[in-house]
C-alpha cells in the first residue's frame, strides 16, 4: 500500500531505493510437493505494463519527455537478446563505439553479438586473437583516446590473464595521471556463474577478486530488462566497468536443474523488454520483495534460488514440513538484488538491516574472500547494535 502510493508520486520523490514490491506476490507451490511444471518467477516482468514500470528506469531519448511511458513498445527478449539490443543501441548512438573479443564477429558463443557485424561493419564489430591480456590492453588503449571500447572476455573463468591490465592499469588509470588520462569508455563484458555442465572452468564467479581494484566498477544483472538498462549505463559510465552476465540466464526456453538441488529450477528468463534506449542506475540495489524479519541479499542467478527458497519456507511441501518449524513459515524476508557489486549500495542494505535486524548474504562464489565477507564487515560495523544475529553467508562450496 505504502509502496504503491510512493511509486505514484515518482519521480518527484527522491527515494533512493526502488522496489518492485507491489508487483510481486509469492505464489505457493503445487500441493504435490515440488513443481512438476515449468518453474516461474514473480520477479520477471512478462507484461508490457509491468515492464514499462520497472523501478528506476530512465529513458534516454533526446526528443520525447523523459518520463513518458504511454506509447512505448516492448518486445519479448531473453538475456542474450537483451545484451544484443543494448549493444546495438550503443553502436547506433555512439560512432566511436566498437565491440571486440574472441568469436564476436559471427555472433559470439552465446549469440550476444549476432547480426552486429553485419549491421555495423567489421571495423566496428571484430574478432581479436586469443589473448585476454591483449583484449583488455587494447580496450584500455582505445578508451584512453576517448573512444567507447566494449570488450568481451569469453568466460569469466578466463579473465585472469587480463587481471594485470584490469587491476594495475584500468583501475588506476585516472588516479595515477592526476585525472589527465582516463578510460571511462571501457566496458568489459563476460559470461559468469554456473550453467550446470560447465565444470571448473566455465562456471566461476570471480567478482570477489576485483573488490580491491578501486577505480573499477562491477555490475551483475539478474534479468533481461535489468541487463539492457544496466549494460547501457555501464557503457556510458565514465569509469571502466566489468559487466558480468550470468550465463545460465542467457537462453529463452527450458529450465535448468542445477544439481544437486532439483527444486531449484531456473525459470525461463524472458521478459517484455522496452525496445527504447533506457538506463538503470549503477550502485543502486533493488528491493525485490519487501520484508521485516530478515534481509536476504544476493545478485545474479541466486536471485531465483532465493525466491524459490522463500516460497518453500513460506509453504513447505509435506516432505519438508516436519523440518521447518511453523513459526518460521510466516517469516517476512526482504529480498534485495545488489546489482552493482563495486561500488555497492551500502545505504539500501544498511537501511534494510536496521529494520529487519538480520542479514543473510547469498553468492555463488566461494565463501573465503567472497564479496559477502566485505559486506558483512561494513554492515556489522554500522548496524551492530540493531542486529539480533551475526551476519551469515550462504555461498558456493569451496
Amino acid at each position, binding site marked *: 500500500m505504502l509502496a504503491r502510493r510512493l511509486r505514484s508520486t515518482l519521480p518527484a520523490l527522491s527515494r533512493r531505493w526502488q522496489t518492485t514490491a507491489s508487483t510481486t506476490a509469492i505464489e505457493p507451490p503445487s500441493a504435490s510437493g515440488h513443481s512438476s511444471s515449468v518453474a516461474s518467477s514473480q520477479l520477471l516482468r512478462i507484461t508490457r505494463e509491468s515492464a514499462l514500470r520497472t523501478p528506476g528506469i530512465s529513458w534516454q531519448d533526446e526528443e520525447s519527455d523523459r518520463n513518458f511511458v504511454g506509447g512505448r513498445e516492448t518486445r519479448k527478449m531473453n538475456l542474450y537478446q537483451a545484451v544484443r539490443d543494448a549493444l546495438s543501441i550503443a553502436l547506433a548512438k555512439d560512432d*566511436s563505439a*566498437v565491440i*571486440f573479443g574472441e568469436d564476436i564477429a559471427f555472433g559470439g558463443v552465446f549469440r550476444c553479438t549476432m547480426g552486429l557485424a553485419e549491421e555495423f561493419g567489421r*571495423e566496428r564489430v*571484430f574478432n*581479436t*586473437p586469443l*589473448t585476454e*591480456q*591483449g583484449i*583488455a*590492453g*587494447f*580496450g*584500455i*588503449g*582505445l*578508451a*584512453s*583516446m*576517448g*573512444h567507447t*571500447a566494449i570488450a568481451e572476455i569469453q568466460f569469466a573463468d578466463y579473465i585472469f*590473464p587480463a587481471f*594485470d*591490465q584490469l587491476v*594495475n*592499469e584500468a583501475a*588506476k*588509470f*585516472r*588516479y*595515477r*595521471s*592526476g*585525472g*589527465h*588520462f*582516463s578510460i*571511462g569508455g571501457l566496458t568489459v563484458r563476460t559470461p559468469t556463474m554456473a550453467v550446470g555442465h560447465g565444470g571448473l572452468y566455465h562456471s566461476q564467479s570471480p567478482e570477489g577478486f576485483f573488490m580491491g581494484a*578501486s*577505480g573499477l*566498477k562491477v555490475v551483475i544483472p539478474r534479468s533481461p530488462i535489468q541487463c539492457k538498462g544496466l549494460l547501457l549505463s555501464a557503457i556510458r*559510465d*565514465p*569509469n571502466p566497468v566489468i559487466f558480468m552476465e550470468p550465463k545460465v540466464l542467457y537462453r529463452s526456453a527450458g529450465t535448468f536443474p542445477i544439481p544437486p538441488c532439483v527444486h531449484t529450477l531456473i525459470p525461463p528468463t524472458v521478459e517484455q523488454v522496452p525496445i527504447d534506449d533506457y538506463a538503470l542506475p549503477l*550502485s543502486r540495489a533493488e528491493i525485490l520483495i519487501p520484508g521485516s524479519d530478515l534481509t536476504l541479499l544476493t545478485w545474479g542467478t541466486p536471485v531465483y534460488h532465493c525466491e524459490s527458497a522463500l516460497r518453500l519456507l513460506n509453504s513447505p511441501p509435506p516432505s519438508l514440513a516436519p523440518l521447518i518449524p511453523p513459526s518460521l513459515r510466516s517469516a517476512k524476508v526482504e529480498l534485495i538484488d545488489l546489482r552493482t557489486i563495486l*561500488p555497492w549500495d*551500502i*545505504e539500501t542494505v544498511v537501511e534494510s538491516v536496521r529494520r529487519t535486524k538480520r542479514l543473510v548474504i547469498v553468492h555463488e562464489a566461494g565463501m573465503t574472500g567472497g564479496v559477502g565477507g566485505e559486506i558483512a564487515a561494513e554492515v556489522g560495523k554500522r548496524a551492530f547494535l540493531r542486529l539480533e544475529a551475526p551476519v551469515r553467508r550462504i555461498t558456493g562450496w569451496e
Partner: protein
Amino acid sequence: MLSTLPASTLSGCLPTTRSPAVSKLAFFNSVTGGGSKIPNYRVLDALGAPIEGAEVPEISEQFAWRLYENMQLLSTLDDILCSAQRQGRIPFYSLTLISLKYGEEATVIGSAAALADDDEVLSQYRETGVLLWRGFTLDGIMAQVFGNHEDSSKGRQIAVHYGSKQHHFHAVSSPLATQIPQAAGVGFALKRDPERRSKNIACVFFGEGAASEGDFHAGMLLASTVPSPTLFLARNNGFAISTPNSQQFYGDGISARGPGYGVDTVRVDGNDVLAVMNAVKEARRLCLEGGRAVLVEMMTYRVGHHSTSDDSYAYRERQEVEDRNRNDNPITRFRLFMESQGWWNESDEQELLFRLRRDVIKALKRAETVKKPGLEDMFTDVYADEPWNIREQREELMALLKKYGQVWKPWQNELGTLKNGG
C-alpha cells in the same frame, strides 16, 4: 586414391603465405634465411664518420644542435638527479630513481626526432627524451620527481613516471610491457578518427626484458591482425636489471620475432642517432601506409645502473662498462660527426654543458622549495565520481589529522611540507 585437389589447397590456412610442399625434411632457425643473423643498420662509425654507402640524412646545423643538446640534457639530468638522490635531496619515497638514459641517449632522441610531435607515445620509463624533445619543461620534470603540487599527476607516482596529455605522452606505469597492447588500441583509435587517420601513429617503447612479457606477444598480435598503425620500438640495452640478454632470450634478439607476426622489422645501431632517425622515419612511413604494426629494434648498451637502488658492478665487470662507454658512446659519436661538419667545437661544448648543468640545478633547487600536494588530493580521481567508501576514508583521515595534526610532532613536520598545511 589420389587426391584430385590442386597441391596449393593442401597447404593450410595461413593468412599471408602459401607454403610450398617439399620432400626434404629440413628444420630452419633463421628469419633471414640460410642461417644468417639479422644485420644492424648504421650510418656513422664509432668515430662519427659516415660508413661506406651510408645514407646520411639531410639535416641543418640547427637541427643537429637540437639533437645534440637534447642528448646532453638527458645525460646531465641523469647525472644531477642521481647525485641528488645520493645526497638525500630527492624525497624518501622516490628512493628508486630510474636511470634516465645513460648510454641510450641516441635511441630516444633519434626516435623522438623522427616522429610527429602529435604521434601518441606510450613508454616504459627510459624515454624521458621524447618529452624533452617535445618541449616538456625542466620544471615539469622536477615536479614529478619531487612529487610536489605542481606535478600534473599530483605527486602520486614514483619518480620518472611522467605523463603529459599536451605532449601526447601517455602516463607511465611501473608494470612492464602493459603499455604494449594498449598502444595497439591507441593506434586503432587513430585509425578510426577521420581527423587523425593517415596522419598519426601510436608509438610504443619497451626494453628487451619487457619484451619477454606476454603483453608484448599480445600487443604484436593485436596490432598485426586488427590491424592498427602501431610502431613498436624495442630498446635492447643488454640488461634487465641484472639479467643479461643471454638469460633473457635465446633467439636473435627482438627483431627475430617480428616476422613471426608478419610484421616489417629492422634492427638498427641504437647508439647512432642518425641511423635511429632514419630507421624510425621509414618505419613510421611504413606504419602509416600499411596501417599495421612495424617493429624497430635499437641495439644499445645500458652504461648506467638500472636505478639508484642498483649497483651494476655486482653483476658485470666495471671494465666492460668503461670500455663500452669509451668505444661506443652515442654522444661522442655524434659530436665527432658535428665537428667534422664544422658545426661544433670545444668552446661550444663547454658552454653547452655549463648552461645545461646550470638550468637543471636551478630547476632542482626550485622544485625543492615547492610544497607537496595537500592530502585532500590523495583521494580524488579514483573514480570520475566519489563513491561512499572513498568519501568515508577521506573524512576519516581528515578527522585524524584534526585530532593529532597540531600536537604530534612527526605529523606536524609532515604537514608543514604540504600545500595549505595539508
